[in-house]
């Protein structure tokens, strides 16, 4: 549950000093204890601020139908544990299960394609020379500057021409493209960090190109792959505007699009219980994936940021 071991520990700097007097040592210990208490008090307040919204939503989502419409004070169910909110949520669209599967399919396909495409591209940019290399790299990175919201209409037109409108696969291709600048950048950095000597040794042993990539280099850039995969998953799982515009039939909606219907309410009344339940359904996979893979996530993120 912690990310302690992810971060390089600072070496404790203990310069050679003459032996200190016991009084000085005791004074220092007392000061350190006071510092620790202040530190962890601040820590508790910080944890409260960042974790409370999740906890409140999670607990509140199990209150019964009438209680769900009242203020979450206290947030836990006082009239008995209930899944009313989830039942109400299930009554929207084509059922919560269908929309969860849609979201999962799009997210996993996005992960697979993003990893494959950025692995190849990162390797190409890191290890090969070819004409317009820097221009092409800048072109990929520069797409980061362009908001995809501004090109949604053309995207819709192009997908329709390709026969991919209103399809989860078409949406996946768009998501993969949106992931590419970050992912290619990450993978290029990951490959750049691999010493050339390792590759040369493998080449002498007869491994070339794709085999070299898969057998020798892939294990070395796995943290980068994990980062790319996690980011692809989270972004695809969480994205909603492109899904809203590009998916036109109800049964294809991903979770965030479904939630807009819940947020809009029925007959002018918003069922806040269903909103809480929806927030929980959309949040759990994100937290699960992050907590499970955060070691790779943080390591990759830091490597990417430092480069």
């Amino acid at each position, binding site marked *: 549950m912690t990310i302690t071991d992810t971060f390089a520990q600072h070496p404790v700097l203990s310069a050679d000093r003459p032996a200190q007097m016991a009084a000085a040592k005791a004074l220092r210990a007392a000061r350190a204890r006071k510092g620790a208490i202040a530190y962890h008090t601040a820590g508790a307040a910080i944890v409260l601020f960042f*974790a409370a919204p999740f906890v409140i939503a999670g607990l509140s989502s199990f209150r019964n139908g009438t209680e769900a419409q009242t203020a979450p004070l206290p947030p836990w169910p006082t009239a008995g544990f209930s899944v009313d909110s989830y039942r109400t949520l299930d009554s929207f669209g084509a059922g919560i299960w269908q929309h969860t599967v849609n979201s999962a399919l799009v997210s996993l396909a996005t992960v697979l394609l993003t990893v494959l495409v950025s692995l190849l*591209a990162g390797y190409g940019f890191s290890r090969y020379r070819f004409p317009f290399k820097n221009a*092409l790299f800048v072109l990929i990175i520069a797409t980061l*500057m362009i908001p995809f919201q501004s090109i949604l209409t053309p995207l819709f037109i192009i997908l329709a021409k390709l026969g991919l409108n209103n399809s989860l696969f078409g949406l996946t291709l768009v998501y993969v493209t949106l992931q590419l600048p970050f992912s290619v950048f990450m993978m290029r950095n990951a490959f750049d960090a691999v010493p050339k000597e390792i590759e040369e040794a493998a080449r002498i042993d007869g491994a070339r190109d794709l085999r070299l990539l898969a057998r020798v280099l892939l294990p070395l850039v796995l943290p980068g792959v994990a980062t790319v995969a996690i980011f692809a998953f989270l972004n695809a799982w969480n994205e909603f*505007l492109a899904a809203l515009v590009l998916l036109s039939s109800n049964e294809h909606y991903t979770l*965030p699009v479904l939630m807009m219907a819940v947020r809009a309410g029925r007959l002018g009344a918003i069922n806040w219980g269903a909103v809480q339940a*929806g927030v929980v359904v959309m949040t759990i996979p994100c937290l699960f994936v992050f907590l499970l893979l955060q070691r790779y996530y943080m390591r990759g993120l830091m490597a990417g940021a430092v480069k």
Partner: protein
Amino acid sequence: MTSVVSSSPLPATRARGHSRRRRRASTGWRGLAYIAPAMLLVLVFFVLPVLLTVWMSLHNWPLMGAQKWIGLKNYTRLLSDARFLQALNFTAFYTLVVTIAIFAVAFPLALFVEKQRRFVGFYRTVIFLPVVVGLATASLLWAWLANVDSGFFSPLLRLLGLVDRSPNLLARFDTAFLTIIVMVVWKIAGFTMILLLTGLQAIPAELDEAARIDGARRFQRFRHLTLPLMRRTIALALIVSITGSILAFDQFYIMTSGGPQNRMISVVYYIFNQSFVSFNLGYGAALSIVLLAILVVISIAQLKLLKIGEERP
């Protein structure tokens, strides 16, 4: 190849030269083959749409019916579009406030979790949790928390006796804006914190120690050692924060639907309204091009200002 070698007066040298050139050429193609799938996707789903956006921006392009070439009329129109200028104004204001707020929270947090000590990993993890949920999810969650009757904040304020009547946070501009700023800081600060943390930890501990031995105070060390050495990290975090804020949409759309008296329409929101609500696709495209130009200029200016462009080969 063989004939060239045999007929040459200097066979060995010539052959080597040939094969080297050939290897370089084939290496070039192979490199291109590796990046081809990425390039194809970027071309079809990014470059082409951008070009199409430019093309559309020169037309009167309704959803149904024929498009009509109108040259730069969309662009002259937006110059005198008061609502667009207001959206630009609001977006600039929001970007400024939220970026300062994020840094004001994230930098102390980064310093807070920098040193290895007990529970520090736990703190980092919890602070980072909101980053991994979607902005749409976070907006939904906070829209509920800020709701006047069924939410958390207003009833809590009343319960604590701080107010007589539950304030409708999202109904007034000031409180709605504040709520959104707090939500975004809650959502994003962990990410900025981790970025800054990487910069902090990339500074060799020996340097800090040396400065301390030389008698530099904590603030002096921070000002003259930490900050300059973190320039690249800060630049990266700034670019992420500013560009992300300029593109803000979800929070205004989901939490306030554009805010009291439509005062919270960001640029992207206005483009969305023009393109997908009013279906002025051509005008929406022209607005998109302006937004795009603004972002490119800002990114270039930031890179130049912080002099990080030259460090990357």
